[in-house]
């Protein structure tokens, strides 16, 4: 479930925190970075690894919006529609992305390439509207820029 490299990193992290529970978020991040999402099997693995009840892991995964408890596409398009982005046309942007990919917000394309999610403020209000493609911020977006971006993502 975790690479040798991450397991070694985990051993280093153990020295920084007084409890195993504090490693919940860091380990879940490792799982998600390796697998793209956190499966029920992965949750069980983390629970065993950190000697914690499965309900704790499940509770944490479902509490934090960035942890995917369902698989997402190769490119996770997270469009901010909060106030500053909304004022500059983010709602139209979501509509456009969904129209192009023929899916609704929260869905993944049949070829598993794209997932579109409407998200809360990403701290990019000065460069609105924007979206996050996996870890990267794409800012000052227009419909044309989005089209160009989507055609470049293979």
């Amino acid at each position, binding site marked *: 479930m975790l690479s040798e490299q991450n397991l070694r990193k985990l051993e280093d992290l153990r020295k920084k925190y007084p409890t195993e*529970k504090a490693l919940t*978020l860091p380990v879940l991040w490792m799982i998600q970075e390796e697998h793209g999402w956190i499966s029920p099997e992965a949750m069980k693995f983390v629970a065993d690894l950190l000697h914690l009840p499965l309900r704790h892991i499940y509770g944490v995964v479902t*509490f934090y919006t*960035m942890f995917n408890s369902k698989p997402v596409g190769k490119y996770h398009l997270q469009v901010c529609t909060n106030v500053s982005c909304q004022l500059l046309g983010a709602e139209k942007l979501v509509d456009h992305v969904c129209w192009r990919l023929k899916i609704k917000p929260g869905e993944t394309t049949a070829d598993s390439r794209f997932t579109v999610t409407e998200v809360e*403020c990403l*701290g990019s*209000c000065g460069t*609105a509207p924007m979206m996050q493609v996996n870890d990267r911020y794409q800012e000052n977006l227009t419909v044309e820029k989005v089209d160009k971006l989507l055609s470049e993502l293979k």
Partner: protein
Amino acid sequence: MPEFNEKLILPDIADLHNIEVYEQHGGYQALRKALTMQPAAVTDEVKKSNLRGRGGACFPTGLKWTFMPKDSAKPKYLCANGDESEPGTFKDRQIFEFNPHIFLEGCLIAAYAMGIQTVFVYVRGEYATWIKLLQKAIDDAAAKGYIGKNILGSGFGTEIVIYRGAGAYICGEESALMNSIEGERGYPRVKPPFPAQFGVWGNPTTINNVETIANVPVIINRGWEWFSKIGAPKQPGTLLFGISGHINKPGVYEAPTGTLLTDLIYKNGGGVRNNKKIKAVIPGGSSTNWLRGEEIEGVKMDADSLKAVGTAIGTGGIIVMDEDTDVIRVIARITHFYHHESCGQCTPCREGCGWMEKILNRFLAGQGTLADIDLLLDVANNIEGNTICALGDAAAWPVQSVIKKFRNEFEKRARKTPQAHSYVPPPHLVTAAS
């Protein structure tokens, strides 16, 4: 004091994120100076400077530091709050990108003043790019002996650890932040006990905003007296104002506290797009009360001045809306945010935010009634003050203020409703009956 134009936190120096450049411009001199002082004298300097927290609550930073026990058998912690999730706020990100070392230097000085061996920097999970930049800065500083054991031969040592959040606005609330570091869901704690007595893992803890900490090296370098004379006397220093919305030049602008809101909008921000009139301004992030366009003349951007006009400085995130803005659509979106981000512990917030969102959505669908306006206000009033943390208040205040300032817009929408009825039961009653 003559007009103050200096930028203290984000000066216009190229490549300041580079540790060598930072050192060439006097970087880490404040740390060297602090290490020659008594820890209590460092705290005293910050206390006398009258530095106030930049996260929204404006609590005096030096006073907060004095709450930490001097002798403690337990380890002590500093948590730097870089969760930065308040809509309209994007300042800490600029510090991580353009001047991370001033922040790290501030962390080290604060740690020395309070006798802290571990500093956690809690950064929102979405800031993956900035976490990498900050980690690079930490590694560079450690390589030069500024972080680690026996810093600069002083005998004092501390480490700085980044903790990556995972998408939860509530983790910007200090006690939720501590729970998150402990590996829990981000549930705010009931206070007291306060963090200085019972913080992370029950140990004495201080939580300061990233921008607050970035001010500390400036105070140590230039002295409390110099700092205390910048801007508004009761909240001195500069603020990183984020300006967004219908504005020609959105961005983060550093200016002294007490700067005119109109100066920030028209001089820094370059005015409103397409020369339109301003309909409304949110002065300090989505949680703060709105101002109508005609109310912003002469308003100064500091805690006391904004309080006097019925709103707050918050995080300094200014959101400008032009004359064509549909304010109900905007407040519905903001309310959706609070509903989504409510942690779910307290019933008034968990349920109330959802009810407010439903009522606002009724207006958007043309189904709102006149009675809905008062119902909305009633729900907001019943959330306010009835929750463990301030998220409930943060959700209620903007709704209350929009009704107060733009009631006519609600009334206009309500009249269009096809079947007006006087009472709409709360959603849970509807579900129970059907």
